[in-house]
């Protein structure tokens, strides 16, 4: 009996979520295949496939998937930048997080609150200040400049995840291994790393997510010279209109999200049981 009502509720919540979250994607899909979709038609009057053969110019998906749309370049840049940012953030945060959880270390609160600053300061302030400093240094409009700039919004998330990972690590296990005669190296490879790995992966996924969704910093620091999926999308819909190619680009800009969703979900599920990661998931809001 209880199971039935559970299913009923689940159905209700589920249908609601589908309509609100995924429902709006349907008209975008329709728009991406439309050639003429004018007021007040509920469906396009002329579809893209019925005219594409006659057009000398690549229309809708023909344009989006052509090299001229720069979509592949932008996707590559997005991936490259977010991977570099993640790697850098990991290298910077891993040793630091270990120190922060050490019981002998007194400055933990102060340092962690320093790390909340980038979450509070307006992104525009960061981006414009970076730009002004990067231009004379020759970093504006370069990958290096963008990667360095992305570090700031990303570090708070990486730090929090890693600190909670270290906190969840039971020192007794490592001590036990030590008592059993495991060398420092053996302890690291066989105990510490396997225990930390799921958490590190989760932190990396969050940073990847945050970095690949950043628009404003990339737009301003990149000066139009480095295109990523968000900046490409902005150049298309910045005026507040959505034509077929803009709709196609919107759909493509969703793909990394879908992939990351599947990836995070797999890793986070086990990891959540450890608890305390709640806030680390904040990462996904940008």
């Amino acid at each position, binding site marked *: 009996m209880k199971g039935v009502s559970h299913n009923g*509720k689940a159905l209700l919540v589920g249908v609601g979520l589908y309509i609100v979250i995924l429902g709006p994607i349907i*008209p975008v899909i329709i728009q991406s295949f439309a050639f003429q979709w004018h007021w007040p038609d509920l469906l396009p009057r002329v579809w893209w496939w019925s005219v594409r053969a006659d057009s000398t110019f690549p229309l809708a998906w023909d344009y989006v998937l052509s090299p001229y749309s720069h979509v592949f370049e932008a996707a590559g840049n997005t991936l490259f930048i977010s991977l570099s940012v993640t790697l850098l953030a990991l290298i910077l945060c891993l040793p630091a997080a270990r120190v922060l959880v050490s019981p002998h270390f007194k400055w933990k609160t102060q340092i962690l609150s320093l*790390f909340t600053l980038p979450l509070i300061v307006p992104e525009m302030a960061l981006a*414009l200040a970076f730009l002004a400093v990067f231009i004379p240094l020759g970093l504006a409009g370069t990958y290096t400049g963008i990667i360095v700039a992305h570090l700031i919004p990303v*570090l708070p998330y990486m730090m929090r995840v890693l600190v909670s990972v270290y906190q969840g690590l039971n020192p007794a296990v490592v001590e036990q291994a030590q008592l059993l005669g495991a060398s420092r190296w053996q302890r690291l490879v066989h105990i510490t790393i396997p225990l930390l790995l799921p958490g590190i992966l989760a932190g990396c996924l969050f940073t990847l997510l945050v970095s690949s*969704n950043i628009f404003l910093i990339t737009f301003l620091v990149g000066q139009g010279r480095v295109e990523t999926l968000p900046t490409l999308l902005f150049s298309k819909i910045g005026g*507040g209109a959505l034509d077929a190619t803009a709709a196609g680009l919107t759909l493509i800009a969703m793909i*990394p999200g879908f992939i990351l969703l599947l990836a995070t979900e797999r890793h986070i599920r086990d990891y*959540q049981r450890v608890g305390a990661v709640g806030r680390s998931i904040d990462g996904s809001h940008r």
Partner: protein
Amino acid sequence: MSRQHWLSLSPVLLVMLLMTLGTLLFAVGQSLGYAPQYGINHFPTLRYYELLVAQPSVAMSLGLTLYYAVVATFLALVMGFLLAMALLRVGRHHQWLHYVYKFPLMVPYLVGIALVIVLFGQGGLMARLSYALGWIDRPDDFAALLYSHYGWGIILVYLWKQVPFMALSIYVVLLGIPEQTQDAARLLGASRWQRWRYVVVPQVMPGILSAVLICFAFNVGAFEAPFILGGGFPDTLPVLAWRLFTDPDYGQRLSGMAVLVTMGAMLLVTVWVASLLSRRANRWQRISA
């Protein structure tokens, strides 16, 4: 031991200090008239702040910014809480539900903006449905949700992105409450309301507060949604800062920085006060318990 600590910490601290505090100093300096790269140096002067205060439209910009941020954050909190409770009730039997609702978290805000344009513009799908149903005759008859002041378009984008975020934060916090504390409270004769008020709320408050503050700070500083979907002059503060910054007259950039510094200061004070209050509330609770 301690030296080793600082050695491990220094790279990341250096990056953070240089790039966060450094840029903050830079922004403050510029807003006070120090900008040799534009050939301007009146440091220190408050004239750029005075210029802002002198414009009546800036007050409306501030009002608009706070309106979008407060309304969106509050609604996201309420709806996120309801969603979190629903997810908790549904439990872990329905994995797919736990996938679906997180989707908006994973995509850029610009995607949310695109969805809102296609659905809620005056020529959008909702307007066309209303026309098909005979409710309106012209696109103009449909409520101006986008490209208008205090419009719901911007708030809808924020909600689409942030309700899942709130729900997730609250859900995780709720999951983290050990069943035993509730059971213990029940055994001690606490009523449902008492258990809620004295057991659940204190435990979830810090997590929820931090999620609320993050959303609020983000909404105040957000650029894309108010730029694309806003009503134009007067703009929200970040859009105003951007317009000032792209003005060919370089002097305007310093005013732009003054806008940003004011916003940053406002946010920092808000967060500081909020965390102070929550700490005091916690202490008070512990004493009274």
